[in-house]
């Protein structure tokens, strides 16, 4: 990892998105103080925390394997951070109660349970409660959903976002899953090979990716070799599947003809794979619109888009 500089916005959720082994987890461990950076600094509110040991950083961290203490009850797991701080047992009790309620676990039902008796989703909630109860300045989450089923993952992502909004806690969330990133991020940091490719509000990163890599890593993108009148030079450009219109009624900047090769039903959206001059373009259409279009596999269609929707032409390689 080199030249990584990351400024996290207070009170927002920053998602660090990158493929496995790109250095995301190491970055998080450096923030937590569990790994010493070879060089560089960790600042909180402008103060240098680089040499501060992890226990003095006031950080809450949820680990990929959760790292719940298997020899303690749910209650003792959540109480751990408070007891270490010498909080009185009376206050510990009420704060553990609150924390469990906050994450949606009934304290009377769960407090005395053993960790191994809980489901994956429940363990996830306990890990969250344990790191929130100490009222950390920063909450770090390291692929916390990696081992959960799709539906449970969706529900928990919603709850983490709700909690974060409620508590206003500065949050850094690391994942390789762009769908997870989409569901939860305010800000997105796209990483690759230990380098930050782009950092910004997620809508901005999606709408104005600085490179083709970002365009195709955060969201889907069709890559095209192209030469346009409006843009200088020649190279690769990216166009998002939902920015392509099928059989457009209005006049558009770019229009191709092609044949529908495959239809992939994706629930609210239908993906239409269209072969155009030997390339396959993926087009996303809303379910309702799609029915109106009345195209099927083998249909001839016209595809069109606006020059303004073309992404990443700058970084053409």
């Amino acid at each position, binding site marked *: 990892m080199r030249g990584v500089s990351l400024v996290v916005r207070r009170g927002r959720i920053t998602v660090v998105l990158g493929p496995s082994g790109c250095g995301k987890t190491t970055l998080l461990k450096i923030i*937590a103080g569990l790994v010493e950076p070879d060089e560089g600094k960790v600042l909180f509110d402008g103060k240098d925390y680089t040499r501060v*040991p992890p*226990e003095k950083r006031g950080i809450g961290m949820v*680990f990929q394997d959760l790292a719940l203490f298997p020899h303690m009850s749910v209650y003792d797991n959540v109480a*751990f*951070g408070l007891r270490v701080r010498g909080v009185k047992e009376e206050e510990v009790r009420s704060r553990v109660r609150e924390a469990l309620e906050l994450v949606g676990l009934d304290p009377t039902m769960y407090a005395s349970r053993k960790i191994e008796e809980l489901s994956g989703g429940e363990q996830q909630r306990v890990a969250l409660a344990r*790191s929130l109860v100490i009222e950390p300045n920063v909450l770090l989450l390291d692929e916390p959903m990696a081992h959960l089923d799709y539906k449970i993952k969706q529900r928990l992502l919603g709850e983490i976002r709700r909690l974060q909004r409620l508590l206003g806690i500065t949050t850094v969330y690391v994942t390789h899953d762009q769908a997870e990133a989409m569901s939860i991020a305010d800000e997105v940091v796209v990483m690759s090979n230990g380098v930050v490719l782009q950092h910004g509000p997620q809508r901005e990163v999606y709408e104005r990716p600085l490179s083709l890599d970002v365009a195709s890593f955060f969201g889907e993108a069709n890559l095209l070799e192209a030469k346009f009148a409006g843009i200088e030079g020649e190279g690769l450009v990216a166009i998002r599947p939902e920015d392509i219109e099928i059989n457009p009624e209005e006049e558009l900047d770019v229009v191709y003809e092609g044949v529908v090769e495959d239809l992939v039903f994706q629930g609210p959206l239908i993906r239409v794979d269209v072969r155009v001059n030997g390339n396959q373009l993926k087009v996303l259409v809303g379910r309702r619109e799609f029915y109106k279009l009345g195209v099927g596999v083998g249909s001839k269609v016209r595809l069109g888009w606006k020059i303004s929707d073309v992404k990443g032409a700058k970084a053409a390689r």
Partner: protein
Amino acid sequence: MRGLLRAYTFVLMALLYLPVAFMIVNSFNEDPFMEGFRGPSLRWFELALRDVQAAVGYFNSFTVALASGLLSVSLAFLAAYAVGNRRVTLFDALAYPPIVIPEIAEAVALFMMFHTVGAEMGWLTVMIGHTAFNVAFAYVTLRATGVRFENLENAARTLGAGGLRTFKDVVLPLAFPGVVVAIAITFLLSFTNFIKTLFTTGPGFYTLPLLIWNRAKRPGVEEFTYPNALNALFVPLVLISLSIAIAYTVYVMSKRKE
């Protein structure tokens, strides 16, 4: 085919237990020489209860084993903790060989070393001799059961616990079952050791295996040396070993099921 294989396994396991079963049955045999089963009897156990030498042997075996077990596990725990979270290290490579070095070679070497430095042979030299071997065994056991828990230690740190607090509240409780297992194993190895004890002991100090050895050399010369009197002496030793082994197995099985 499958049934045949299972039957085979049953027979094999039964054969493994044959010598022990043979010994236990004969300890209840009225006949002193096992020339046949002459009827059930407790005479050898009654004899054992009056056997002051055997009591001294059991006591000496016990104190040596307990001291060696505790000492070797303490020494090994520190080393395993120092080695840290890395999965495999040079030290792990170094710890195996002493376990497989021929015991008789190590026994002779220890004898010669003690002799060379002029040590007085007895309880202490025996205990040190056992520990020399047990440390390696305890180290390997503790490395396998774990004395470091990287992620959990990290979690404790981020929750605000310093190094000592993390050690006390996370490392120790989690390492504890492994420590008990290591103590049990080293205790057992020491308790039942013969060769090394023989070479490192001095006049007047003997453990139970040495006593049995002495008596087994002159079968039937006196009442205490009848084969079935020896069998009766073995029974508690065997039962102790079996119960430790079974406790260990149950522990391992319960861990794996989790």
